[in-house]
């Protein structure tokens, strides 16, 4: 296959399947939906876990630490498989869509990473800030809410942005369960046309455009945050 042939096929597939059959919009839609759910749920859960880890309640700290270590130490695809089979069973809902199971698994996985990001963000705030606040007679709670967390959020925004981009790429693993995301379109189009490389190249372009524009957007956001302080 020559390069011109590949390019020709890429174009044909793009027009016929991605635009004509609307696979581009549904694929990007599902990918972004899955990413958004994962990042939102992951951030909320991750924050709770990070705060939980700072308590003096040892069993809670142990459970969270174990959870984080297991999720970070096993392959994502394996976690998705486990969730795919186990979550419908646990929830006693055999008809649960694979999308839901996958979204739950990805959220938990993301929460593990986000909790570590937030924990390090809080720890990166200079100890002197806490000392000054406490020395002025502020309570631990006020110190956390008014001094430490606002500074921690600024520290962790870049890392959170990276996590978002990673999540977008990781949603491709969900195609294993045919959830309709961008990577799933490969299986669909491949089924119709028996084409491989041109479809893959098309998808590579879509993924790249998604992540690249997102990282540019985050860059603008970060610069604006920096200006304010």
């Amino acid at each position, binding site marked *: 296959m020559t390069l011109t042939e590949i390019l020709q096929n890429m174009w044909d597939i793009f027009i016929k399947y991605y635009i004509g059959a609307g696979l581009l919009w549904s694929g990007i839609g599902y990918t972004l939906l899955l990413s958004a759910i994962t990042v939102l749920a992951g951030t909320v859960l991750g924050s709770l876990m990070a705060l939980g880890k700072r308590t003096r309640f040892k069993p809670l700290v142990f459970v969270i630490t174990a959870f984080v270590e297991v999720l970070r130490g096993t392959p994502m695809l394996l976690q998705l498989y486990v969730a795919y089979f186990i979550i419908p069973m646990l929830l006693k809902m055999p008809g649960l869509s694979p999308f839901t199971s996958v979204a739950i698994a990805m959220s938990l996985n993301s929460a593990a990473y986000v909790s570590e990001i937030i924990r390090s963000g809080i720890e990166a705030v200079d100890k002197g800030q806490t*000392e*000054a606040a*406490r*020395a002025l*007679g502020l309570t631990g709670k006020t110190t956390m809410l*008014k001094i430490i967390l606002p*500074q921690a959020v600024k520290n962790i925004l870049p890392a959170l942005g990276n996590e978002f981009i990673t999540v977008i790429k990781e949603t491709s693993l969900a195609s294993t369960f045919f959830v309709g995301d961008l990577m799933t379109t490969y299986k669909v189009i491949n089924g119709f046309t028996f084409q491989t490389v041109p479809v893959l190249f098309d998808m590579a372009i879509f993924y790249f455009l998604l992540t690249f524009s997102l990282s540019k957007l985050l860059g603008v956001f970060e610069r604006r945050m920096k200006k304010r*302080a």
Partner: protein
Amino acid sequence: MLEVNNIYKNFGSLKVLRGVTTHVDKGEVISIIGVSGSGKSTLLRCMNLLEQPTFGEVWIEGKLMTPVDPYLHREVIEASNTFAKLTASGMSTDDAVHKIKEEDLLKEKHSREGAAYKKLMKELYEKNHIDVNEGRRKMSMVFQQFNLFNNKSVLDNITLAPIETAKYHHAKNMKEVKEEVTERAMTLLKRIGLEEKANVYPSTLSGGQKQRIAIIRSLAMNPDVMLFDEPTSALDPEMIGEVLDLMKELADSGMTMVVVTHEMGFAREVSDRVLFVDEGYIKEEGTPEQIFRDPKNPRLKDFLSKIL
């Protein structure tokens, strides 16, 4: 006004303070001098419980901030059989005191006496104690590294703690409080000539400006005593003067101050009393005249000969 009684502080096996007792009277300016690692900063940080003393008591205006130390009185320990046994086995006096306190050996020996003593101490504590945060508001601290809040403007840095304090005390008219506090903050900023910096963030200020703002941030709490932890050590040489001038001004206005410093000129000119801290003890204490003209302790002589 501020009293520390028999303060011990261990960091792991490192004994930083080994029984320090002193008091600060109203209007007094006290300088604490000594070599690095002598425990002088730790002593200051024990005063407002940024470091929790291992043993000993801190009193502010007759109110107890630390838990009551059942072995506060060294004589009690020294009179005990355990103490005699330990020193007989070759332990030094201080190490024996330390061991008894750390392992609560007296309580084991005289359990009934110990229980009664403890009950008395608990009553004493309940009658006399002051909440840690409440106590800290009476003795604000200025740090070596300034520690202005990076996420707050200069004005907010100064007003934050007084406003929060009013909230803790359930002030009725918060709007009025905010206006009052802001006005006071602006007056203080004017006093140091930095009123045009009210709305900028700390990252744009010079070290000298930061430290002067940190000082008036402490001042805005209307503290009874101000603690200074080497306030000029992190400054460029040309900025030390402006900070020392402000501190002198405060001292002249009758503010009670405890200053850990390497600025011997300041200690000599401004302070009423100088404490020489070494190896976790106050080795010598006196007026600047006594300390600088006529030092008695050999370690102090050595220290002064190196630094002057």
